[in-house]
Each structure stands twice: as C-alpha cells, then as structure tokens.
C-alpha cells in the first residue's frame, strides 16, 4: 500500500493530559458522572478552564437519551466544535483523528476527547440485547451469549485455520496481567498463571473465563491541541504521526480472520516514515486475546497466521521484549464500555510522556495504538490505528 498522496501530515498536533478515572465493577452513578469527572481531570492536568475548551468529542453507550450536545449544557461548556463517536473499541482512534484535523485547521484550539460508561446491574444485558438491529434480529436470539459467543466462533475458526493453541492466547492474557500488577487502576489485581488460564471455566468454547473482559464503569480522556499550545501550558505531550480508519472491510470473508487494518497499514507506516520494527510498544484492542493476535498480524509485526509464533517469541511485558498492552489492557483493567476504546491510547500517551502509572516501557519513543469494535452481526466492523511519538 502506498500512502495516499493527498493526505496531509499531522504536523504540530499533540495529545496531552491523559486521564483515567479509576474503574469500578458496578456503579450507581450515571455515564454523565463518569464523563464529567474525566473532563475535570483534563482541566486539572492541563491548567485550562472550562471556557478554554472549544472542542468536545464524546463516546458513550450509556448516556440514555443524551448525546454530546446535551452534555455541553450539563457540564457548562460552550465549545465551537462538537463530536459524538459511539464506536466502541474504535472510539479513541476515531475521536483522535477527527479532533486532530479540527485543531490543525483551526476550527478548534483545545479539544477534549472523552469516553465513559457506567455499568449498573443488568445494564450489560440490556445493552447487548439491543446493540444493533442485526444483533437483535440475527444473533441475540441464538443463545444470547453476547460478544463472547460471537468471538468464540471467530477464535474457533482462527485456531482451525492457523493452528494456535489456547496456551498461545493464554500467553497474551498472562503477560497483560503481569503488566497490570503495577498499574494502580486495574480491577484484576491477582497474578494470573497459564495453568489458571487454561483451567478456567468455559464461557463459550473455546473462550474461557480469562479470555473475557469484565464489564465495568469508568472513563478515559485526553486533550488534543497544537504542540506550541501544549508547550505554553507546560504540558508533556505525544506527537501524532499517522492514523488509519476502516469499516466493514473484507466483507467477503465468511468468518472474520482480519480486521480492516491490512487495507491501510502501509499508509499508516509510510505517513509516519517508520516501519513496524521501530515501534517500541503496542496497545491493541483486547476484548479477547485472539483479537490482539490478529492485530499483531494485521499491523505488520508478523505475517498472517504467524501470530502464535510471534507471541511465543516475546515476553509481551513492559520490562521485556515487545511490550504489549502496558497497563494490562481491558483483560486486566476492565472494559468500561466506550472507554475501552480509549484505554490503550491514554496509556500510550502516559508511556510516551514519561508519566506511566505502572512499570514504564524503557526508552519508549514510538507507540502504536489500535482500536477495533462494533460487532453488530458476526464481525467487528470498525478498525483504526495511530502511531504516536514522544517529544525528546
């Protein structure tokens, strides 16, 4: 793939003020409460005031009747640029792409991108039963296993086709747990062994308990602005090098074996002027380990079908080789709805700005973050990725 000649580089665009509101398994608070806290966190971190925020991008599944516009009044904001990106696991990448162009073009100066969802008793069931028209018509009536059942078939097909074992997926989950043990906000605080992973109870074969994320409440946010503005504020920031986004790719595949990344990944690296070997750490969207393995392939770290061998060849830990999901990812931190699509991005900005909350990745200069989401029928429709770099 060659980069599209017409794509303008993201010169001067940075991401700053990474904020995570510590997750909780269940919350009696609303999504508004979580999102409000995250925006306040960005203000506190950046020293900006509410009236300085002239751009707002919101991602959430549990706002009820509200969209981003209702939140401006709720939070007393008066932005001149507004976006609503309820794209699940792709929310962070997509929000970043749009916000960056808005800032670059001068439509907004300071865009706060925020994702947050609450998790109340029974709200997960309510969400998955009506997640999409296709899910309602053609998936939920078949055992109501939710995404576990859908990804079980994707994983099963992938295992048959390319031969990885459960232990290969277990390696990913176990390494992430190791990373999570130093991350203060992870809901899963117990070490995970491969034996425990393999012995855990089946949820939807071949998916077992530790292949699944725990739905929870939480919020994540970051600030997008120009590098000079961040410097004026004394804000550590990460530069945006390149991004890609793709929907409903490879619709002809009978079962999903790849996301949309292979369509555009050449452009991702070409636009950044680097190759996969220069990436210091990877944050994948890990609603299931199989999806992380597919991302390692589709993002060019190894060839299709070689994900298992690649995983076997690395520790995947922050202090080892090929650090992956450095905060523990959703598998260990929890999945706070759309915030799950922000988690890797916010963590990458922390790692690149020397602000890691847990074990830092040594000399982390370039991070790749990818997003994936919206399994409305039998496959995830949205894929995206971004390359970010620290500022020396």
């Amino acid at each position, binding site marked *: 793939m060659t980069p599209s000649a017409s794509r303008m580089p993201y010169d001067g665009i940075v991401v700053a003020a990474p904020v995570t509101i510590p997750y909780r398994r269940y919350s009696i608070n609303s999504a508004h409460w979580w999102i409000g806290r995250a925006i306040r966190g960005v203000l506190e971190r950046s020293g900006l005031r509410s009236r300085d925020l002239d751009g707002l991008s919101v991602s959430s599944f549990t706002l009820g009747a509200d969209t981003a516009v209702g939140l401006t009044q709720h939070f007393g904001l008066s932005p001149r640029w507004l976006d609503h990106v309820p794209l699940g696991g792709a929310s962070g990448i997509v929000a970043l792409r749009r916000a960056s162009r808005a800032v670059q073009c001068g439509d907004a100066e300071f865009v706060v991108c925020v994702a947050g969802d609450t998790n109340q008793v029974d709200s*997960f*069931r309510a969400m*998955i*039963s*009506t997640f999409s*028209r*296709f899910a*309602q*018509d*053609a*998936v*939920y*009536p*078949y*055992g*109501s*296993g*939710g995404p*576990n*059942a*859908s990804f*079980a*078939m*994707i994983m*099963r*097909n992938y295992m*048959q086709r390319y031969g990885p074992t459960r232990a290969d997926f277990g390696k990913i989950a176990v390494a992430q747990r190791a990373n999570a043990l130093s991350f203060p906000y992870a809901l899963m605080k117990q070490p995970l062994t491969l034996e425990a992973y393999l012995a855990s*109870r*089946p*949820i*939807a*074969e*071949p*998916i077992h308990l530790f292949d699944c994320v725990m739905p929870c409440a939480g919020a994540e946010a970051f600030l997008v602005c120009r590098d000079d503005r961040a410097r004026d504020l004394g804000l550590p920031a990460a530069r945006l090098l390149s991004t890609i986004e793709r929907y409903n790719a490879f*619709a002809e595949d*009978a*079962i999903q074996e790849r996301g949309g990344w292979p369509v555009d990944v050449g452009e991702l690296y070409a636009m950044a002027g680097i190759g996969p070997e220069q990436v210091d750490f990877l944050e994948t969207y890990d609603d299931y380990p199989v999806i992380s393995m597919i991302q390692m392939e589709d993002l060019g770290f190894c060839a299709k079908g070689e994900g298992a061998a690649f995983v076997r060849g690395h520790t995947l830990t922050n202090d080892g080789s090929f650090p992956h999901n450095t905060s523990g990812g959703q598998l260990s931190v929890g999945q706070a709805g759309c915030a799950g699509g922000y988690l890797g991005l916010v963590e990458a900005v922390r790692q690149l700005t020397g602000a890691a909350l847990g074990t830092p990745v040594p000399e982390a200069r370039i991070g790749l973050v990818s997003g994936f989401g919206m399994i409305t*029928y*039998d496959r995830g429709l949205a894929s995206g990725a971004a390359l970010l770099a620290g500022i020396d």
Partner: protein
Amino acid sequence: MTPPLAPPKRKDPLTKTRAPLLPPGARSRTAKGLAAAAAEGRFALQVCAECGAVIYPPRDACPRCLSPRLPFRDVPRDGVLLAETVIAASSDPYFRERLPWRIGTVRLDAGPSIVTHLHGDVREGDRVRLSLNLDKGGQAVAMALPTMPMLHMADDRQWRELTCDPKFRRVLVTDGRGRVGQAMAQALSQAEAAIVFVGIADSWKPFPGEAALRAIARVEIVPLDLTDTVSVGDLAGEIGGRVDIVVNTAEHVRPGGMLERTGLVVAREAIELRYFGLMRLAQSFGPALRARGADGVNSAAAFVNLLSVHALMNWPAYGVFSSAEAACLSAAQSLRAELRPGGIKVVNVFSGPLDTEWYETVPPPKVTPSALAAATVDALRRGLEDVYVGDVAEDVRARLAVNPKALERELGP
C-alpha cells in the same frame, strides 16, 4: 448420534412447574419476513430483485447495489458449518435454563454466513442443511441439521425446543366418530404419542370404525361433546393438566350456500360445533396448555385446527360451511396470540375437499383422512404453524397470493 429421548418420569406434584419463558422476541419488521417462511417450513431469504444477491441478516437496502426491492424467496438451504461454540453463560433467562447451548456459523452455498442453532448431530466442517423454524416465542430462527436423516434425530434437545413432536406427549383428538379423527388417532399413536385421548360424544351410539379405533395402541376413549360446554369443561377438569397437544377433528361439512335452504338450522349447527366448539376447547384446555409450555419432555406444545382452505376464500358451493371455517380461522389467530406467552403453537392445517361422504359430488383431487393425519403429524414434528394439504389447498393458496379478487371470482359459478 442423538441419544434417544427417555420417556418422562411421572411428575412429582410437589415440584414447581417450570415457567414458560420465551427466547428474545424483538425483531425488526423486515426480519419478520423470515417468520412467514418458517411458519410453512420453507427456507426463504431476501433476494435482491435487481442484482440477485442473497442477503442475510434481513436488510432494507441491498449491500451490493442498494436496491430497496428485497423480496423473500426460497433459496437453497445447504451450506458448511464453519465454526461452532457451546454457550455456557448467557444473559437471557430462557437460555440460562437451557445451557449449554450450541450455535455456529454456516456459510450457505447461496452466499451469506448465518449464525444458527445447531443440531447435536452436526459438527464443524460438516455439510449441513438449514431449517427456518418458529421458536417458542413465534419468531423465526435458523437451525443447522444433518443433510441425511439420522437415528433419533428428532429427539435432539435443541430441535425439540422448536417442534411439537408428539413423541411421548399426550394428545387429545376431539372427535373420533369420523374417519378423520380415527386416522388422526392412528397416526399419532404411530408417532409414539404417550396417550391418545379420543373424544366421543354420545358413546352409547355405535359408529363405523369403533372397534378398530379402540384397538389402536395407547388410545383412550373419553366422553366429549364439543357442542356442550359442560362436557368440554368436565373432560378438561379430568385430563386438562396432562394434555400436551389438542387436535380438533370436529367436522361439519354441508354443501350449499345461503339461498339453498330456508332458516338457520344448518348454519347454527356449524357454528355451534366448529366455532363455539373451538372456543369451548380453548377456554377449557387453553389455560393449562399455556401454563405448561416448558414442563419438560412432555411439555404442552400445540393446539391444532383442521380447517378448510376455503376459510381463506369462500367457496360458494359450500358457502355456509366456508364462512363457518373462516370464523374458526379468525378465532385461531386470536388463540395463537393468546397461547404464545406459554410457548404453545397454534397449528392451522388447511385442506381442500376430503375423500369423505360430505364431498361425494366433488370431483378429485381429494384429500384422504390418512393424508390429512400424516400431514398433521409431519407439521407437529417440524414445528410448522400453517400447513396446506393436497392439490386444492396448494392451488387456492397460490392463487390467493397472486390475486385474491380473481380467486373470489374463480371460486364462484
């Protein structure tokens, strides 16, 4: 291979009867097009009228050419089971009670991939045959079956959720005096019904075929007069809690329209036996059926109406009869909605003229009582809701679908 179903044990009266939960029932209006095919045992998906693409899940625009013209058409139902899973954790109460539950993804030869229920005899990589069926809530679902018949195939646990198989169930045939009722009792007994209660009014009056009827295995003659509310209520009081399938075989076929006779005697008789008879059965047996829709292997399953296809469009040669049948069809539609919360199917079996005495002047083709009974058992085994038996019934249904007004004119002299 499916393990054969074990006959249910005698029920402990102290145990709670499992509440008849229903699977998730929300569907888009477009997706309900699948139910029309499932009700008749057809396999139909949307086929783009412009580019021919076969489409699933149901859509409102073709994903290949954006055409809005997407009629449901019968399509080849075979494919390959690409991947399966066994759901061990479900968020829905109906499925939670029935775990583990197998589903899979089937790539149809016709094109699309379908997430589907799996029969126990199909395995990953197998060629499979898809069936569209109405689930307990009356919504269409797909299930992958073996392409060849297998031993005890109908006993599969997930398949039996979609069917009303008479095997090990207790059936009430409401009228055994006629050949239809007798053929029905024979067919249900052969289908391994646990008991076939056969209603006989005025049992002191002998009738042709009585000895043969009494000789059928597991037939139990019970007193039942559908024109008598007390009689129907008394029988329900005695056996209502252990009748799983009701098959109403009462007939009142008389030639003639409204002008051929003076007075209302014949019409009143027809309404009394057929329409009020149906209502009496519904009121006496319906509540218990509805409460027992999830009561194990011999859960309550179905209420079967044998209707003339001329319930759908009046045949003036049998005009009064046709209009009484139409009244029964309308009542059956109400009953279908009323029994749905219990997961009970109302099966309407439409036939043309039968090969019986009241149709003696009508030329063939005619439907024999045994063909009607076989079609009824087949419908129960396949979980159908609307069945058309014989050439006349098929002809009327086809003409009705194309041009109802032309059919009305064609049925008259």
